[in-house]
Structures are given as C-alpha cells and as structure tokens.
C-alpha cells in the first residue's frame, strides 16, 4: 500500500490522523499491561535466589530500555526538524521528551525498590542506574532549555542541537560510568543466575511492548495538544470542533 507519508508531515493533516490512531494504541497498551502484569506477578514462578522481589524487573527493565530508545528517537525527530525545518518533527521531539523522562524516572525508582531488599540500600551506584540518572538529567535539560526560550523557533532549534549533542555523548558517558564503576568495584544490579523461565521472558516482552504502545499513545496525545497550542492563530485550528 503506497501511503504518501509526506502528506502527513504537516500539522494540518497529522492532527486528525493522530486523533484516529490514539485509541488503538491506548487500548492495546492497556491490554498488554494487564496481560504482562498478570504473567509477571502471578504466573511466573518465584526466583531461586531473589524470591518475590525480582518481579519488579518486569517494570524496571522495560522502562530502562524505553527511556534510552525514546531519547534517540527524540533526538532523531529534533535533528529532522533542525535540518529540514519541519515544524511537526520538532513538535514530536517536544512531545516525546516528558514521556522519556518519566520512563527514566520510573526506571530509577524501580531500581531503588529492587535494590533495597537485595543490597540493603535505596541507592547503589551501579553503572546502569547511574547512567540512567544522567539520562534523566539530559531529558530535563532538553525540557528546561525548550521551556526557557520564548521564541518557538529558537526553542525548537536550540533544544534540537542540545539533543543531538546529548545523543553523541551518551555512549561516552555510559563508557566512562562503567569504567568508574569497575574501578571502584561497585555493585552491579543484574538479574544473574540461571536462564530465565519461559513465563518470565513472556512477561518481559509483553511489558516491553505495552510500554512502547503506551509511549506512542501518550506522544500522539501530547503532540496534538502542542499543535493546538502552536498553531492557535491559524485558520484551520479555529475551525476544529474542539476549539469552537
């Protein structure tokens, strides 16, 4: 099916498309969340070494993975907006940022919840958790910079440059933090031990898919409200049913 993707690259056409897609993503995400949590918390057996506490990884691991991918996707959209001057790409980047930050925060929080029963401390300076913390700072920096600039065009472009610089730095930061951690013989939070039981794998993948669909649904919702905000002086917005 040859879809003319460029047709949807303008806010005017994307707005209704997004509106139609959101329910699909939202509902499927809710279903997968329910299924994933059920498998993870009820069906999967308890772990030999970690007992019941390990189940938090079904939230922790997907949120870590999603937070990292979302940063790259956000930087990608921002780069498109910067290079090709497309407003919608920049709006998508702004829409993704808070969700990415949220997942980073959830990852840190669930990491702490996991760490406490295992290692007795709410925070251990594990390489991955520390990198996740720095990723959260990168997200917050993007959001703060965008919010601090009044002119929307300058805000989009400055934040895009920051996101690109950030994504280039992410491997360097991750490498240096791992280096730092091994130097100081820090603890490593890992789901170690025997290979995962089939139910655990199912739970993990289901939760990963659920988080992904949730992220898409929320990003689409947020980009619609950004479109409303930014384009409020244009004719087509004033003719929308919601606005009248």
């Amino acid at each position, binding site marked *: 099916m040859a879809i003319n993707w460029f047709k949807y690259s303008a806010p005017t056409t994307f707005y209704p498309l997004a509106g139609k897609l959101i329910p699909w993503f939202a509902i499927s995400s809710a279903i997968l969340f329910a299924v994933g949590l059920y498998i993870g918390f009820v069906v999967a057996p308890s772990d030999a070494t970690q007992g019941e506490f390990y189940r938090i990884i079904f939230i922790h691991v997907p949120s870590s993975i999603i937070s990292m991918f979302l940063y790259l996707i956000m930087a990608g959209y921002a780069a498109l907006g910067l290079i090709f001057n497309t407003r919608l790409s920049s709006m998508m980047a702004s829409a993704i940022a808070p969700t990415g930050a949220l997942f980073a925060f959830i990852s840190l929080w669930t990491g702490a919840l996991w760490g406490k029963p295992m290692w007795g401390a709410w925070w251990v300076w594990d390489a991955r958790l520390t990198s996740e913390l*720095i990723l959260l*700072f*990168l997200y*917050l*920096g993007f959001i*703060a*910079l965008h919010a*601090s*600039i009044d*002119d929307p*065009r*300058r805000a989009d*472009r*400055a934040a895009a*440059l*920051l996101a690109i*610089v*950030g994504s280039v*730095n992410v491997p*360097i*930061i991750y*490498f*240096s*933090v791992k*280096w*730092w951690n091994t*130097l100081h013989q820090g603890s490593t939070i890992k789901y170690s031990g025997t290979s995962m039981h089939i139910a655990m794998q199912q739970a993990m993948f289901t939760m990963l898919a659920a988080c992904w669909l949730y992220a898409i649904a929320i990003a689409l919702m947020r980009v619609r409200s950004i479109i409303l905000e930014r384009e409020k002086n244009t004719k087509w917005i004033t003719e929308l049913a919601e606005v009248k």
Partner: protein
Amino acid sequence: MKKLSLFSLLLLVIRRDLVLAMRRRADVLTTLFFFVMVVSLFPLGVGPEMDMLRKMAPGVLWVAALLASMLSLGRLFSADYLDGTLEQMLLAPQSLSVLVLGKMASHWMVSGLPLVLMTPVLGLQFDMSVEAIGVLMLSLLLGTPILSMVGAIGAALTLGLRGGGVLLSLLVLPLCIPVLIFGTGAVQAVTSGLNVSSHLSLMGALLVLALAFTPWVTAQALRISME
C-alpha cells in the same frame, strides 16, 4: 590593506579577549577565589581528618574546578552579545568556528589555567603527595580546556536567557561527567600505584574530539540563538 590569515585571526581574537579580561581583572579573580573557597568548604563540612581528606582531594578539586568553570562560562559570549560585537562576528567573512575557538582559548587561559596553577597550594592543604599533585595538575590541564569547550556550547544555547547560569550548568554538567571521571581516576590510580597512562590518554582523546567538533557546534548554536 592585507588580508588576514586564519591563524592571525585566531590570535587577534585571543589577544582581544585577553586584553579585555586584563582590563576587567575582577572577573578573572572572582573565578579563582570561588574555586579556592569551594575547596576550602569541604574540610569544614566533613571534618579535618587527614586520611579522609587525602582520599577525597582529587574529587573535591575536580568538582570545584567544574563549578568554577560553569560560573565563568556565562561570561563567554554575554558581553559581546550585549554590545553587538557578537553579531558582527557572525557576519565575519571567515569561519565563525575559528573566532569561536579563539574565544574558547582565551576563556580557558583566563578561567581554567589559573585553577591549574592554584592546584599545588590546595593539594598541600589536603596532604596530597607530590606525584598525586602532579597528576592532578596534568589531568586539570587536559580537562579544563574540555570544560571550556563543551561549556561554550551551553553558553551559546543559553545566550540572553533569564535562567542564565543555572540553566547552563544543568545542560553542561552531564556532558562533563566523563571528564570528571577520567580526571579523578587518574589521580586515584597514581595514589594506588597503578598506571595513569590509560586515564590520561582517554582525556587526551576527549580533548582532541572536543577541539575537532565543539567550535563548529558552538558556531551553529550561536546562529540559532541570534535569530
């Protein structure tokens, strides 16, 4: 009138900024005093026990150097922005990246180099050994230029904004973490009797990367901010 070569242009910018800094000596000295003060706060905060201070020293000095650099970065472009010289630089018929590199170099000479030179005195306050002080100075010598260069990107992006210095720090500090890690790691290696060359060569590599990319990225950031 002769045309200026790129190298002469670089020297012109560096000389200009150094002359301006000398005529406003207060700015230079405040960064240095801030550095000394922050370093002195740590023993007051954690107690004067020498063993602990000796172990903390590289981290303390490095974090203080980071913070002092962040403070001084606000001044990198703001004076030129306010009096219109920056917009003239954007209209220069030669590469803006060269002009930016010149500003970064003079910023480092005025804000970073004094910190490096102050280190032996502060290192003695923390009872660091001579080798440790030497490696610390070398790591700061390699690292402070990187801080000036990466920080310049933040300074260019936050030009004229109300959030100012704090926003700049929020943006730049995460990007400076690798420099912090390798810099302090080098000193800790020497105090444990291990090889420092890997840390220092990583710093060197970051310095080369910064030299290659940050002037151009900063120039783009300046054009975005000056619209």
